[in-house]
């Protein structure tokens, strides 16, 4: 059930200059969140930030009524959210969108690029419950783009690439040596920049490995009314907000 709620800011945890975790307290027990679901967050009204900001749900704590977001500053809205004050109310609409379909008893390759790691810890938890083995591959431009290494490590092996070679293997995620032998993986899950996901999708398709990608198209509403966030699929344009954000890569015409 989608809810519109005023949530209190519990904290803003800075990971570096442009990346932070926003923690909110929900007024009642949070709705059930699945990895891939997102929320539309209202940024205090300024003329420049007119629409809500769609953000993946990073974590949820049902007992302590907490919900959190992993946010990279990409514009005025995400920059203003970082300045949120403790106890301030932030209005959110959630949970929105579909979710990843974690496979049971599989061998998962989970690939995150930049802020694309936002839904992947929840996914890791779901995969663990379903008794899947997990290998993470995290990519960034430089070492400071790689976040939450220790949290991911709790769920499986963590591999890293950076474009400048400052951490892990040098290059893009698809340059990683793991791709020399990926036939042991039963499913690939990925979230990050579109060019990265396209490249991952091509490798997955070429090796006949099922692959889910989570898109982040611009949207005005987040619940299927504006039809702005569409992506082209083999069955016509589909709304990323309601029929996504997670798609089977073979359904997309990109």
């Amino acid at each position, binding site marked *: 059930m989608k809810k519109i709620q005023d949530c209190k800011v519990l904290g803003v945890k800075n990971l570096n200059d442009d990346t932070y975790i926003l923690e909110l307290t929900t007024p009642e027990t949070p709705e059930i969140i699945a990895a891939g679901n997102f929320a539309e967050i209202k940024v205090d009204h300024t003329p420049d930030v007119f*629409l809500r900001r769609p953000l993946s749900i990073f974590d949820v704590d049902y007992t302590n009524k907490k919900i959190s977001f992993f946010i990279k500053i990409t514009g005025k809205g995400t920059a203003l959210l970082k300045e949120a004050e403790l106890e301030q109310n932030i209005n959110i609409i959630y949970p929105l969108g579909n979710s990843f379909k974690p496979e049971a008893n599989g061998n998962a390759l989970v690939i995150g690029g930049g802020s694309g790691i936002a839904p992947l810890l929840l996914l890791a938890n779901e995969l663990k419950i379903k008794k899947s083995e997990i290998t993470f591959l995290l990519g960034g431009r430089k070492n400071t783009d790689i976040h939450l290494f220790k949290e991911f490590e709790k769920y499986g092996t963590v591999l890293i690439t950076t474009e400048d070679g400052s951490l892990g293997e040098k290059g893009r995620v698809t340059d990683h040596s793991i791709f020399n032998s990926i036939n042991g993986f039963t499913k690939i899950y990925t979230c990050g920049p579109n060019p990265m996901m396209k490249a991952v999708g091509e490798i997955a398709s070429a090796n006949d490995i099922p692959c889910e990608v989570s898109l982040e198209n611009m949207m005005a509403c987040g619940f299927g009314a504006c039809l702005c966030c569409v992506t082209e699929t083999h069955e*016509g344009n589909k709304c990323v907000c309601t029929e996504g954000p997670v798609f089977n890569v073979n359904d997309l015409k990109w």
Partner: protein
Amino acid sequence: MVDLKVKVHELEFKNPVTTASGTFGFGEEFEEFIDLNRLGGIFVKGLTLHNREGNPYPRMAETPSGMLNAVGLQNKGIDYFINNIYPRIKEYDTEIIPNVNGSTVEDYIEVTERINEIEDINAIELNISCPNVKEGGMSFGISCPSAIAVTEAVREVYDKTLIVKLSPNVTDICEIAKAVEGAGADSISLINTLLGMAIDPHTRKPILSTLTGGLSGPAVKPVAIRMVWQVYNAVKVPIIGMGGIMNAEDTIEFMLAGSSAIQVGTANFIDPEVSIKIIDGITSYMGKYKIDSVSDLIGAMDVEELY
């Protein structure tokens, strides 16, 4: 108990608050948020004769106090609406008003004829003002001869309330309003979006795939209020006003300028509950100023002191 009922030609709205086509889906998208039965009416997403995929992504750009859209009338066609969507949404206790579009006059006629067969639909909104389609749409609404031609043609095949939605992208809105009134429109709705454009200064590329799109949101409200007032003074048919309405006070403003009813548009994206909040806000306003009937506000701007 205040009287919120308003009349637009033969249509009776339980209150003046309706939702604008293209911003409210088919109503169902809002079912989890609000009681749709409380609305005066729902102007559903624009319909065409055949399936339309709309324009390529990106179709939206956020702008100061508003947004540009270039959706381009994505819909599954009139038959899909009649067979698959309408049977569900007809259960709502509110006026369901289809928004009719076409590339040619013949398209408009055919879509209208299909809707005419549905007994419980009491009105259509003829959209001659969509700025985001290559053929038809706004091109019908920016010159008097074509606006008259399409309105007359649809009038001939439609005997219930015919609302014609006007484009603000014209030199003289009153001229077009009088033309469609003369051609048989029972009501005029305005304004559709203002043609606009946005460029990313860093990439030097246009933000919309279509280069131009339609501007909506509070940024357009003063233009809309002005046009409603001008049209109110130029025609006799009732007006349904819209353009950047965010709250009850905006609604009152539109009614004072001459609107008999209003459409809430872009605000639905930011607050899916806004239409209901507006209905409640109008009731409070009427209590505060001791107004018994909301229809007393229509065109009631007080200009006495100015003259």
